[in-house]
């Protein structure tokens, strides 16, 4: 039985559960590295999930759905950017309001478009990619995720853009004094987080469920933020944290039916996260100006 639990299947299930979290988490990394806390990721994922279904529904092409998801995420992030960067409103208020707006908006549009509020029609997902010469199949989005993780890691730590972005999160006044347009950099970080959060949402609706259900993110945006902090604001770290969370989730699904009350099994992912946080990771240090509006 235990052997059955610790199988390859477990790992692939863990991976699937971690994909939406990872995308959103990476989004969080871009946003917060630039100094903007993005608690709106929950809402961004939700509109992403919705966008993916809308796009696919009308064109029957999941790739268009994917683009729509990114666009929708982008738009919500744009509002967040305008409100919190340009108007310098507390970033958490803005995020909380956008989360409320996202639930309302998706349901409203869902009713308008699908004539049903609660859930959409089922859609076709992406054609799975096959590993050459084997029977193994993998979702293109998972491939994209790995690419995005690696690219993000490089972009943030090895490129001109990443250096400037991080400078805006660590000391925007220094960046400003060197002629870097802090406002623009911060916008870019938030907008990228919108696109990535949208992708995470797209995975939920396009690859996982193949349907949009009202409020289907069920708190994953917050878990993704936890993953980002846990991963110390780095892409690779965030992925590891999200994967760990996915693993704990996958494990808990397979532990049911052993006589332990469900509720305690349900707690496993959260307890594991806490223990790892205490035992291994210790003090995580946020970018110094994370969450602080930049005022010239």
């Amino acid at each position, binding site marked *: 039985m235990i052997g*059955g639990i610790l199988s390859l*299947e477990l790992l692939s*299930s863990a991976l*699937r*559960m971690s994909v*939406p979290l990872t995308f959103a988490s990476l989004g969080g990394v871009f946003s917060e590295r630039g100094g903007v806390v993005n608690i709106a990721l929950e809402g961004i994922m939700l509109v992403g999930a919705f966008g993916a279904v809308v796009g696919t529904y009308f064109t029957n092409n999941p790739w268009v759905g994917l683009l729509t998801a990114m666009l929708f995420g982008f738009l919500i992030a744009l509002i967040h950017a305008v409100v919190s960067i340009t108007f310098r409103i507390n970033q958490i208020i803005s995020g909380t309001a956008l989360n409320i707006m996202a*639930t309302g908006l998706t*349901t409203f549009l*869902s*009713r308008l478009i*699908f004539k*049903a*509020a*609660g*859930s959409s029609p*089922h859609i076709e*997902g992406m054609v799975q990619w096959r590993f050459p010469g084997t029977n193994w199949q993998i979702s293109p989005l998972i491939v994209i995720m790995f690419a995005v993780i690696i690219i993000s890691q490089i972009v943030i730590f090895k490129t001109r853009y990443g250096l400037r972005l991080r400078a805006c999160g660590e000391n925007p006044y220094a960046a400003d004094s060197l002629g870097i347009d802090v406002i623009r950099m911060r916008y870019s970080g938030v907008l990228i987080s919108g696109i990535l959060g949208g992708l995470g949402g797209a995975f*939920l609706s396009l690859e*996982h*469920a*193949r*349907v949009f*259900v*009202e*409020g*289907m993110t*069920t*708190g994953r945006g917050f878990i993704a933020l936890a993953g980002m902090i846990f991963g110390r604001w780095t892409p690779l770290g965030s992925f590891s944290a999200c994967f760990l969370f996915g693993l704990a*989730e*996958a494990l808990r*699904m*397979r532990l*049911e*039916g052993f006589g332990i009350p*469900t*509720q305690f099994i*349900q707690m496993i992912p959260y307890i594991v996260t806490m223990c790892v946080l205490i035992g291994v990771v210790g003090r995580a240090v946020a970018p110094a100006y994370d969450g602080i509006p930049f005022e010239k």
Partner: protein
Amino acid sequence: TAKVKVGIVYDVGGRGDKSFNDAAYRGLQEAIKRLGIEGKDVEPGEGGANREELLRLLAEQGYDLVIGVGFLFTDALTKVAKEFPNTKFAIVDGVIEGLPNVRSLVFQEHEGSFLVGAIAGLMTKTNKVGFVGGMDMALIHKFEVGYRAGVKYVNPKAEVLVNYIGVTGEAFKDPVKGKELAMSQFKQGADIVYHASGASGEGVIEAAKEMKKFAIGVDSNQNWIAPGYVLTSMLKKVDVAIYKTIEDLVKGKFTGGIKVYGLKEDGVGVAYDKYNAKLIPDSVRKKVAQLRLDIIAGKIVVPSTK
């Protein structure tokens, strides 16, 4: 004379869940069309915190019949019904006793679940079938228990895998976990999975489609969602119950008390339609029809609690 006014308040999840709330909506629309009544359907806010307020608002506005869809209304409806003795109320899935102006519409989901369980038990090739529940609580346990009894009745060797999605109301709108749980059951060897998880069931059906196995739908007829992969659906005819209630009101025959909708009353059942015409062999259909009669006749008593 003024039109009869009927207000419906939904459960969390609201209209468009392709299952429970949608069925209620159909019942109301049917009544609007055929009985010429005036209808209004509303939904409580996030988490359904203000159910009671909504019921009261409708009663205050002179609605003749106010229907709460879902067990969540039990408390609130009891209170409001006491305040408005001249207004008629109905509750779906909840039991409110001792109030003459309240009709409780309850369904024998375990009976219907028994029948789909029997289908699963007869058709499984792996002798393993699965059940995915939404929120871990008594009402959903009814589905699980009836299903398990049905499976075991026809196939004592079969194993039933059981998972619940969560412990909050969110569990009814998380198709992602629904799918993941169904997939893990399929991977563990199950070939048929029955769900009682509201909108999360969308994921269960999706899993069946992706892995080319079978799902069994619930509440409304869900066979069309993924033709060829939904073996059948356990019907819970909320629309019928609501239509009947409105009809009784219009005809002046409304009474309080509990109305049970079981197999006998045709309140629950198994969905056969063009989508599963080729999926279920006649022998199975015959056997299931016999079981149905046995239950109606009281020869089989289906358990409803764990």
